[in-house]
């Protein structure tokens, strides 16, 4: 029964992962008008669906990067399995809840923050609460890049810089090369380039991100004794995760799309192509090297870079600073929610009752945030409106 809750909440996480990250691939195409908002999200959703099915690679050890609740072959630690694995299930459930809560809050604020960081943060928090500091994989054994520091914190610092640099160089080159070509002509041409490069980013997103949820659900199934194969993932898990991430993507996180597409940089289609090209290249290369970077950090860095690389373009650093602040607190904030929900569940006996109560708390929080979002809705119709410059607002008030 706890298992059912874990599966449902994991799929809900996958769904928030989808709409949180639509912006990474499609914000620039929507902002420049290369694709209409509806077509863009439909394309991104479809490609995420395809991408999720393409990723048959076993992602069962996804939690091993940050916490020690599994052995290296993917089997859950035996000492967590007493009583139908409920110890492990509660940790995973609390971790997922932490991840979802943070994803929803950042969506409400229109901030692109990494869904994988939210998930990892939640898991770390729940593990700290449940097993203490020894349950967390801080830095691996030092022989390879591993642990919270090696696989989460350092890559997060590096990825926006790498992507930003690549996009800045790309943008600069593009503007140098196309100098002397009529602007109308370049706009049309680069829109096609944008659509292509954005599609690539969507596909890569589906292959990378859906896997994480598949791994978590399969871990829960093994812990409760409903699945034993650590080499494969049940097909229904794969199908459900693919559908959850694709429908989330299709829903579109319009608030985040607006921030990334209009808020950070006034983007023209050559910049959009440079940004998505950089994102796609960096994401694919890094996952090919087994050094997965957060799609969100890469995409944001790229868009920022495309603003730096274009001569005379404005970058709204104030928006950028807000985003970076959100990234920094993602891990501890999701961790805090994860830890708190674990304590609540533990206080209620650490069994079914606890699991039901924390899931109900999450649902209540989600509904509250959704209702709050209705006060100032962002939707396909107004996603491209002019970005209200806070500075201009202040001068009128003064």
């Amino acid at each position, binding site marked *: 029964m706890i298992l059912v809750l874990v599966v449902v909440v994991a799929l809900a996480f996958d769904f928030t992962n989808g709409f949180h990250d639509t912006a990474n691939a499609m914000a620039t195409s929507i902002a420049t008008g290369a694709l209409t908002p509806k077509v863009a999200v439909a394309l991104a959703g479809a490609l995420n669906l395809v991408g999720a099915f393409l990723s048959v690679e076993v992602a069962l050890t996804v939690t091993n990067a940050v916490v020690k609740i599994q052995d290296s072959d993917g089997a859950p630690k035996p000492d967590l399995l007493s009583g139908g694995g409920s110890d492990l299930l509660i940790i995973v459930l609390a971790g997922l809840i932490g991840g979802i809560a943070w994803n929803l809050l950042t969506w409400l604020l229109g901030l692109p923050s990494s869904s994988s960081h939210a998930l990892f943060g939640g898991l770390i928090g729940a593990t700290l609460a449940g097993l203490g500091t020894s349950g967390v994989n801080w830095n691996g054994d030092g022989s390879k890049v591993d642990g919270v520091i090696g696989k989460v914190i350092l890559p997060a610092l590096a990825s926006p810089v790498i992507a930003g640099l690549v996009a800045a160089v790309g943008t600069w080159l593009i503007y140098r090369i196309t100098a002397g070509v009529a602007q109308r002509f370049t706009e049309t041409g680069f829109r096609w380039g944008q659509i292509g490069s954005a599609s690539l980013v969507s596909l890569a997103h589906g292959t990378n991100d859906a896997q994480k949820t598949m791994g978590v659900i399969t871990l829960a199934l093994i812990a409760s004794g409903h699945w034993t194969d650590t080499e494969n993932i049940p097909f229904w898990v794969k199908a459900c995760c693919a559908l959850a991430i694709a429908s989330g993507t299709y829903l579109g996180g319009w608030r985040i799309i607006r921030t990334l597409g209009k808020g950070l940089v006034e983007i023209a289609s050559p910049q959009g192509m440079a940004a998505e090209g*950089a994102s796609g290249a960096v994401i694919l290369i890094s996952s090919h090297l087994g050094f997965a970077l957060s799609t969100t950090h890469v995409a944001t860095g790229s868009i920022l870079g495309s603003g730096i690389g274009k001569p005379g373009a404005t970058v709204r650093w104030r928006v950028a600073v807000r985003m970076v602040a959100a990234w920094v607190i993602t891990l501890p904030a999701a961790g805090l929610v994860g830890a708190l929900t674990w304590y609540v569940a533990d206080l209620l006996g650490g069994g079914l009752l606890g699991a039901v109560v924390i899931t109900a708390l999450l649902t209540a929080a989600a509904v509250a945030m959704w209702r709050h979002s209705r006060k100032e809705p962002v939707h396909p119709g107004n996603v491209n409106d002019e970005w209200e410059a806070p500075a201009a607002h202040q001068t009128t008030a003064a």
Partner: protein
Amino acid sequence: MHTLYLEWQAIWKILVVGLILGGGLPALFALGIRAMAYGTGGDAEDHPAGVLPAPHPVGRALAYLIFALVLLAVALGILVIVASGFGKEVSFADVYPTLQDK
């Protein structure tokens, strides 16, 4: 410190290959656009009022060649994703890409 060293090893590779593919392919595409504008002539290029640049068919041909190259590179990228999903790896040992087991 050892972690930082390991990290740096991965980062510089991503940065170099990223600059080549992520910066180079869009630049190549831009070159295609440039060639296309040269090939199309007329209002596709910035020009002094009244003097329309003549179209150059060779520019068009070059543009199509460049776009084909970009598409090829993207197709290769997709192949890499799909292949790794099926436990295969794209190898460039024979210059042209071949699929092999990981």
